[in-house]
């Protein structure tokens, strides 16, 4: 068996989602802003037609790209995010009451996902104590400071984006495109990963695998647009 094929390797994003999508499901989608998002799996999720989705993602994409595509088609019923400021269609649907929204502090969101994947149903954090984020949640004091109970998050499906992966599902990420992807890999009942390159098993350094293959059920090699939200540059100083 060549070391770049296995039961986990799928030929394209559409095939990689086959049998995994259904109406009303909860989906985690990796990325921060448009950096490190599973572009192709989001498009395939859109094409699957699954609706009434709850989507857990730090951001909501932009109009027509990333998760913005699923907003255009009204497939998302509810979002759990920390910041959604870049999306007009989101704003319209939210103000019209067509979209539910649960804001989590970014670190609480990240930790809730890690906890979900790690079998931890609840943890205490000082983040959000005394704010509306803590409304209705249990408060407990440890060493004289107050903390709020937050719960672990899991999803029916996680879609994530990595840099390289192998046929056993081992993944490595690149620079800040890592962000929410590794935790989400652990917190989906099923995890599908898209990567820029599927490399032979054995070519990734075992000391430096960011997501061990146990977390990845399906993997697909894809091409990426990698749209940039804020291209910020400096000019070369004349020397």
């Amino acid at each position, binding site marked *: 068996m060549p070391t770049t094929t296995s039961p986990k390797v799928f030929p394209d994003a559409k095939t990689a989602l086959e049998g995994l999508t259904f109406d009303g499901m909860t989906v985690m989608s990796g990325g921060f802003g448009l950096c490190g998002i599973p572009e192709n799996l989001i498009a395939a999720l859109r094409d699957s037609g699954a609706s009434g989705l709850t989507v857990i993602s730090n951001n909501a994409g932009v109009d027509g790209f990333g998760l913005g595509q699923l907003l255009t088609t009204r497939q998302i019923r509810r979002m759990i995010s920390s910041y959604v400021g870049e999306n007009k269609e989101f704003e319209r649907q939210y103000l019209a009451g067509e979209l539910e929204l649960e804001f989590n502090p970014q*670190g*609480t969101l990240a*930790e809730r996902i890690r906890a979900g994947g790690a079998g931890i149903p609840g943890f205490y954090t000082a983040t959000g104590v005394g704010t509306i984020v803590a409304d209705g949640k249990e408060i407990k004091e440890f060493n004289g400071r107050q903390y709020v109970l937050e719960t672990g998050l899991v999803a029916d499906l996680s879609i994530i984006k990595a840099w390289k992966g192998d046929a056993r599902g081992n993944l490595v990420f690149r620079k*800040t495109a*890592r962000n929410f992807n590794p935790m989400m890999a652990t917190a989906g009942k099923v995890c599908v990963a898209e990567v820029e390159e599927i490399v032979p098993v054995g070519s990734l350094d075992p000391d430096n695998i960011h997501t061990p293959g146990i977390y990845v059920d399906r993997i697909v090699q894809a091409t990426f647009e990698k749209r940039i939200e804020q*291209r*910020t*540059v400096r000019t070369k100083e004349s020397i």
Partner: protein
Amino acid sequence: MPWTRDQLAERASKELQDGYYVNLGIGIPTLVANHIPEGMTVTFQSENGMLGMGPFPYDDEVDPDLINAGKQTITELDETAYFSSSDSFAMIRGGHINLTILGAMEVAENGDIANWMIPGKLVKGMGGAMDLVAGVKKVVVVMEHANKHGESKVLKACTLPLTGTRVVNLIITNLGVFEVKPDGSGLVLVELAPEVTLEEIASKTEAAYEVALHG
């Protein structure tokens, strides 16, 4: 004369110390990176998963996989390390960041801060702000003293939904600098911007404060 945006950033940079790990918010706080004192080692954290943030890239260096928490393209340094969002906020929540410098809509006498939500307006979300104010050892707010309606942003009590309670340590406005007493019992005006008078501060500040000007 009140401090300009850049002068505010320069004043805020005086809170840096050698060896500090620092998280800078969006806006004026970002400018603090331009004012690191010569010979001082300061490392900037970006909460999307990076320690050791470099300057903006030259045009031919732009990398879509390398952005800061404001979603701007940036560069890495020799000492840079990347990590996941959960590891990043473990670092923040765990008290490992020495200093964060943030903007605010309102700050109260007891150190409460509101900087994420105006009821009735579309809410974009708190992002990492609640984690930063709750987790970082020293929280410095840099902001205009008054809002665009001319109303004081240094208040007896915040009116907007809070980002954190009793978390701010220092308030730097374009008119002067206030310390928040460690026990949350009130403010101390410790510095004035050039040519700003105590009377001007008094007339433009809703919060009560003591005066103990440095130097």
